[in-house]
């Protein structure tokens, strides 16, 4: 059963739902091409790119915004 009114009393528990399974295309960063502009960090709607530009595939939904915003085309979208 669910809680009354489907309230969630465990803060941050949305992390339990790994949304990476929604992904059809996976972003792959070529760090040799990367110029550290940090556009991918700023534009990722899910906050899935960390300061080292490593992508968190547990939650990346594969939207491809990072690829579009990358000025040096260092990110490729590969079908899962």
């Amino acid at each position: 059963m669910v809680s009354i009114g489907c309230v969630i009393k465990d803060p941050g528990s949305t992390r339990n739902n790994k949304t990476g399974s929604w992904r059809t295309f996976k972003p792959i960063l070529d760090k040799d091409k990367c110029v550290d502009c940090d556009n991918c960090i700023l534009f990722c709607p899910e906050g899935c790119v960390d300061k080292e530009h490593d992508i968190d595939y547990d939650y990346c939904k594969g939207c491809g915004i990072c690829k579009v915003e990358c000025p040096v085309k260092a990110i490729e979208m590969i079908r899962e």
Partner: protein
Amino acid sequence: MRKDIMTANRAVAEAVKLAKPQVVPVYPITPQTTISEYLAQFVADGDLDAEYIRVESEHSAMSATLGASQAGVRAFTATSSQGLLYMHEVVYAAAGMRAPIVMADANRAISSPLNIWNDQQDSIVERDAGWIQIYVESAQEAFDSIIMGYKIAENENVLLPLMVCLDGFILTHTVEPVEIPEESEVDEFLPPYAPDHAFLDPATPMSLGTLADPAYYTEARFDMNKALMDSASVIEEVGAEFGEKFGRKYGLIETYKCEDADIILVAMGSLCGTLRAMVDQFRENGDKVGMLRVRSYRPFPYEEINEVIGDAKLAVLDKNVLFGIGGSLYADIKAKCDTNEIYSFVLGLGGRDITPEYIEEVLEITKNPQDKEVYWIGLKGDA
């Protein structure tokens, strides 16, 4: 205790004042009732310590009421007719989020054609929202039902919103004597709202109005269904406790001379006052007729109805219509009760007076039915 002459609107406002909601969001323009005007006055005069929010629509009125309830306070709003229909989306959300809101609905017809008079189609539209629906017969019962309403809705086994449905004009615009109990008595009966299921508090953070994917949604709806069914016994308990304290006892249904009745007239709301008088008249003429008033339409008290009806023929009078089906009360009784013969009478739509002649026609048809179950009473021309 004091006794005053007042409309049911005024009675509702007086009850709300004593129930002490902390937030009252209302859309103040047509089709709003004078309930909101009285409450505005109470707040302005300092007689009710509440945040009175004049919102820009009924959709916002119910949204703000729901928000207030989920902030952990008692909340009230009132509406009517098109206003209730404009709330529709959030009416469902309020039940799903298990907010024990109490709302008064002045029952009026809905468009089109445009009509501002009484019938019960507006609240029937909301019958499946998960709200408790109480249909009252008098201004006194409207008053009492608001006070009881919060106690029922806030019960830990219920936690659903509750709608007090009072017939527009017939109750809302006519005056009758109403007993107003002392504030201290109401305070004893109705303690302050102290939620622990769903409310905003930085000390115990929680997410409200969440997404439930296919893995959870069915369970959420099942729980609502159970809570609504469980509310039946709470309505009876609270009605009995109210009776002990204030001298007026309430249940899910009310019966009048049904014990030996061959024919039972079934209805909701103020119409039952007319029916009570007609039952006396019919009995003087030798017809064994009784009256069954459904006070709680949701939860639907089919077990209690079953205990009363026996083998009697049922004439169900509805001031609403489910197109192609008949009246809604008829449809529910037909679906859930062990009926012998049952007939549906659609009447009183859009404020058409329900006269003694109409009730005589209902009785006549029930005694000698044609080859059908659903009848529209008082139709003009060739119908």
